C-alpha cells in the first residue's frame, strides 16, 4: 500500500501578496515606522521580515482611486509609503460615487411593467450599463480592480477632507475589530501603500510596544468611549467618568478571525467536541473579575449538564454579562461564582470592565438611584442578565432548537429564511416569486439544514457579522445604509468569487450572465463566460418586500432575525 505524504501546511504557505521581493522587504525595513519596530522582540518563527514578506503587500493607487470605503468590512490596515491621500470627513460621499447600488423602490407602474419587460432568458444583462456607470479601474492584479472617483477636484470642493501623507497608518481598528470602515479614503496623487493583513497586524501589536500603544491608544480615543457611552449600563456617565472607564477597560479577542474558513470543515465534527474546543472567556464557577461586554461576534453561553455542556443562549454585539454576580458579591453575598461558561463562537471581541471600575461607576449609581426611590439602573441590570437566568430552567428538549441554531451559527442571521416544514407543501411558489423578481433566476435554494420541522433555507441571512464582505476588492458587496441588508452592486461586481468563497453558509452563487438571446456574455480575452455574484437582496427594490414570504400561501416561510426569535413548541415567535 502506498502512503501519500505532504509536508505539514505552514502559516505562510499562502502569502498576502505574491509579488514581494527581497528588495521590497529590505526597502520596507528602512521605512521609519517599521525601522522603529524592535525586530529582536519577535520570535524567530514569526520574524518581522517574515511578517512583511508574507502578511503585507505593496499596493499602488492612481490619483482618484478609492482605497477604503465607508461602511466596508476590511481585514487589513494601510501604511502610507508615499503619495498623498484624503480622508473624506462627515457626511461622506454619496453611495453611488463609492460604487454602491442605489436602492429605489419601484412604484406600482414599474412593478407591473415587470410583467412584460422581463426577458425570457434568465440573468440577462445590458452590458451598455457597465460601460457607463461602473467607474471601475482595471488592475493588472486579478481581482484587485479599484473603484475611482472621476472628478477629484469636485470632490475636494464639495466635501470636507483631511490629508494623509507618508507614515500615516489607517484602517487598523476596523481590521482588528471586525467593524465597518468609518470613512472613505482615496488617493489624491499617485500613491504607494503597504497593506498589512490582520494576522500580521495582530503580531505587530503583540510583539511591538510602539505599535500596541499606538493601536490601543487610537482605539481608546476614537471608538471605545463612544461605544461604552452607547451601552445601557454606562449611558449615565459623563465625559471624565466615561474616560476613566475606557482607560481601565481591557480588550480581548477569542477564537479565530477567519472562523468562516474553518466552519465548513467543522460541520461533520461531533457537536460535544466542537463545544469543548471553543476558547473559554468566562468559566462556570469562577469568581467574576469584571463585566464582559461583547463588542463584535458571538459568544456561547452554556452550563454543565451531565458529561457535556448545554447551550442555553448566546451573547451578541452590545450584550454583556457578569454585572449581577459582581453586584451580589459587592453587597456581601458569599460564594458568588459565575453560573455559566461563556465561550467564543468563531471569533469574538470582548471588553472586560474590571470589578473595581464597575463598583465605582455603576453600583454607586444604582445605589443612589435606589435611595432616590427609582430602581432604573438595577432594573436595567436585571433585565439584561435576566435574559440568561431565564434559560436556566429550560429542559434539554426545550433548548434543543436554540442549541442547534447556535451550533450552526444561524444566530448570525438577521433575515434568515426559516421554513416550517409542517406547513410547507413544497409548492415552490416562493422560488417562482423570487425568480420573477430577479432576472428570471431565483436567488435562493429551497433546501438547507433542518432540525425537527424547521429548515433554514440556503438564502442570504444578511448576517450581523457579514464575513462575505471581507476582501471584496471593489466594495460591490456592501451593507445598505437604508435597511441594513447586505446587497451586491452588479455594476461593480467583477466576479472574483471572494464573497461566495467566504460565505460560511454557501448562500452566494456565481452565475454566468447572458445577452438578450440567452447566450453567455464572454470575456473577449479568454472566451470564458463573465460571472457575477448573486444572492438574496430581500427584494430591496420591490414594493412587496421579500417576494418569497409574500408569495407563501401557507405562511410557512418567514424571514427572521435569530436574535429576536423565541422558540416555542407551537412555532417561532418574536418576529
Amino acid at each position: 500500500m502506498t502512503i501519500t505524504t505532504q509536508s505539514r501546511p505552514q502559516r505562510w504557505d499562502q502569502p498576502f501578496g505574491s509579488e514581494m521581493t527581497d528588495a521590497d522587504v529590505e526597502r520596507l525595513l528602512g521605512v521609519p515606522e517599521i525601522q522603529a519596530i524592535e525586530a529582536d522582540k519577535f520570535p524567530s518563527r514569526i520574524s518581522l521580515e517574515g511578517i512583511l514578506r508574507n502578511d503585507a503587500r505593496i499596493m499602488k493607487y492612481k490619483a482618484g482611486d478609492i482605497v477604503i470605503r465607508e461602511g466596508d468590512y476590511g481585514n487589513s490596515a494601510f501604511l502610507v509609503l508615499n503619495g498623498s491621500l484624503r480622508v473624506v470627513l462627515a457626511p461622506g460621499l454619496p453611495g453611488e460615487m463609492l460604487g454602491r447600488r442605489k436602492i429605489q423602490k419601484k412604484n406600482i407602474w414599474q412593478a407591473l411593467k415587470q410583467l412584460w419587460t422581463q426577458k425570457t432568458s434568465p440573468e440577462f444583462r445590458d452590458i451598455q450599463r457597465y460601460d457607463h456607470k461602473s467607474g471601475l479601474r482595471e488592475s493588472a492584479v486579478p481581482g484587485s480592480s479599484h473603484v475611482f472617483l472621476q472628478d477629484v477636484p469636485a470632490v475636494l470642493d464639495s466635501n470636507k477632507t483631511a490629508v494623509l501623507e507618508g507614515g500615516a497608518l489607517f484602517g487598523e481598528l476596523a481590521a482588528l475589530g471586525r467593524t465597518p470602515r468609518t470613512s472613505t479614503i482615496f488617493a489624491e496623487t499617485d500613491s504607494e501603500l503597504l497593506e498589512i493583513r490582520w494576522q500580521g497586524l495582530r503580531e505587530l501589536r503583540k510583539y511591538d510596544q510602539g505599535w500596541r500603544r499606538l493601536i490601543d491608544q487610537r482605539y481608546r480615543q476614537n471608538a471605545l468611549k463612544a461605544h461604552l457611552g452607547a451601552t445601557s449600563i454606562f449611558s449615565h456617565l459623563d465625559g471624565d467618568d466615561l474616560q476613566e472607564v475606557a482607560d481601565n477597560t481591557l480588550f480581548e479577542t477569542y477564537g479565530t478571525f477567519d472562523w468562516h474558513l474553518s466552519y465548513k470543515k467543522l460541520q461533520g465534527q461531533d457537536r460535544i467536541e466542537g463545544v469543548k474546543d471553543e476558547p473559554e472567556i468566562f468559566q462556570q464557577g469562577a469568581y467574576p473579575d469584571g463585566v464582559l461586554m461583547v463588542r463584535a461576534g458571538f459568544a456561547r453561553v452554556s452550563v454543565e449538564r451531565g458529561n457535556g455542556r448545554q447551550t442555553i443562549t448566546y451573547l451578541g454585539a452590545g450584550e454583556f454579562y457578569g454585572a449581577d454576580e459582581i453586584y451580589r458579591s459587592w453587597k456581601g453575598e458569599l460564594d458568588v461564582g459565575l453560573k455559566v461558561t461563556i465561550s467564543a463562537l468563531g471569533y469574538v471581541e470582548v471588553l472586560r470592565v474590571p470589578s473595581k471600575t464597575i463598583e465605582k461607576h455603576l453600583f454607586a449609581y444604582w445605589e443612589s438611584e435606589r435611595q432616590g426611590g427609582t430602581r432604573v439602573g438595577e432594573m436595567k441590570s436585571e433585565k439584561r442578565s435576566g435574559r440568561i437566568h431565564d434559560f436556566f430552567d429550560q429542559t434539554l428538549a426545550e433548548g434543543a432548537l436554540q442549541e442547534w441554531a447556535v451550533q450552526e451559527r444561524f444566530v448570525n442571521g438577521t433575515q434568515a429564511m426559516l421554513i416550517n416544514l409542517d406547513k410547507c407543501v413544497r409548492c415552490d411558489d416562493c422560488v417562482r416569486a423570487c425568480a420573477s423578481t430577479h432576472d428570471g433566476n431565483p436567488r435562493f435554494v429551497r433546501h438547507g439544514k433542518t432540525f425537527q420541522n424547521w429548515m433554514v433555507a440556503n438564502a442570504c441571512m444578511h448576517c450581523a457579522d457579514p464575513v462575505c464582505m471581507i476582501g471584496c476588492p471593489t466594495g460591490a458587496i456592501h451593507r445598505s445604509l437604508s435597511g441594513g441588508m447586505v446587497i451586491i452592486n452588479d455594476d461593480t461586481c467583477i466576479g472574483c468569487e471572494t464573497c461566495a468563497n467566504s460565505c460560511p453558509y454557501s448562500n452566494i452563487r456565481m452565475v454566468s450572465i447572458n445577452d438578450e438571446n440567452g447566450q453567455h456574455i464572454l470575456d473577449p480575452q479568454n472566451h470564458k463566460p463573465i460571472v457575477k455574484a448573486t444572492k438574496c437582496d430581500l427584494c430591496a427594490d420591490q414594493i412587496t418586500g421579500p417576494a418569497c414570504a409574500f408569495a407563501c400561501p401557507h405562511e410557512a416561510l418567514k424571514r427572521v432575525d435569530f436574535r429576536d426569535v423565541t422558540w416555542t413548541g407551537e412555532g417561532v415567535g418574536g418576529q
Partner: protein
Amino acid sequence: MKRVWGYIATASLFFVLIWGWTLQVDSSLNYPEFISGGALFFVILVLCMFNVRKRLPFLPLWPAHKWFLLHSVSGFLALFLFWLHADVLWPKGLYVQILAVLFYGTTLSGVLGLIMEKIYPNLLTRVGLECIYERIPRDLADIRNKAENLVLECTEKTGSDTLAQHYFETLGWFFQRPRFIINNIFGGQNAQTWVMQQCSVLERFLNEAERDYLDQICVLAETKRKIDFHYSLQTMLKKWLLVHVPLAAAVMAMVIWHIIVIQVFFI
C-alpha cells in the same frame, strides 16, 4: 386559527344575506336565481383571482397566505351558493348537468387538495430527510449506481454471487424506480416492511464480509424508501392542481356561456 374563523364568519354572513335576499325576491314573485347566480359568479371570480395573484408576485395584492384562506373559504361558500342557485343537488338538463359535474369535480379536487396540504407536510417532515422534487430522479440514479457498485464489488472481493443473485432477483426491482407509490400516498408502511424483509431473508446465507455489503445496501434501500415517500407525496401535492385548475377553467368557461345564454334567450 382565529383568522380562519374570521373568514368563515364573513362568508357565512355573506351567504345568509344572499339567502335572505333570494327569499325576499322570491316572495315578490321575481327570479331569485338572478341574485344567487350573480353572487355565485362573483365568488367564482374571486376564486379564479387566486391563480392570477400567484402570477403577479411583484404587485402588492395582499399576501398569498391571506388569498389562500380566502380561496379555501370561498370554495365552500361557492358550493352552498351553487345549491342555493340550483335549488337541488343534481340539476336537470344536459348542459347544467355537465356544468354540475365540472363544478363538483372542481370542489372535490379542491377539498382533496386542501386535505393533502394539511396532512402531507407533516408526514414528509417525519421522514427525516428533505429532497427537492426535481432532483429526485438524479438522487435515485445515484443510489442505484451505488447499490450496483457495491454488489459488483462484493462479488469481486468475496468471490460469491449470493448477494448479486438476490439483488438481481428482488432488490434490483426496488432500486429501479420509485416503488410503493399508492401505498405511500395513503401513508402506508409497505415499503419499509418489504425492505426489512428482503434484507433479513438473505442475511443467514452470507458470510461476514458479504454481510457488510448487505448492510450498506440496506442503508441505501432505506434512504431510497424515504425518497420514494417524498416522491409519492410531493407528486400528489404538485399534480392535484393539474386536475383542479383545468376543471376550474372549464367551469369558468361554461359559466360565462351560461350567463350569455340566459342574457340572450331568457331576458
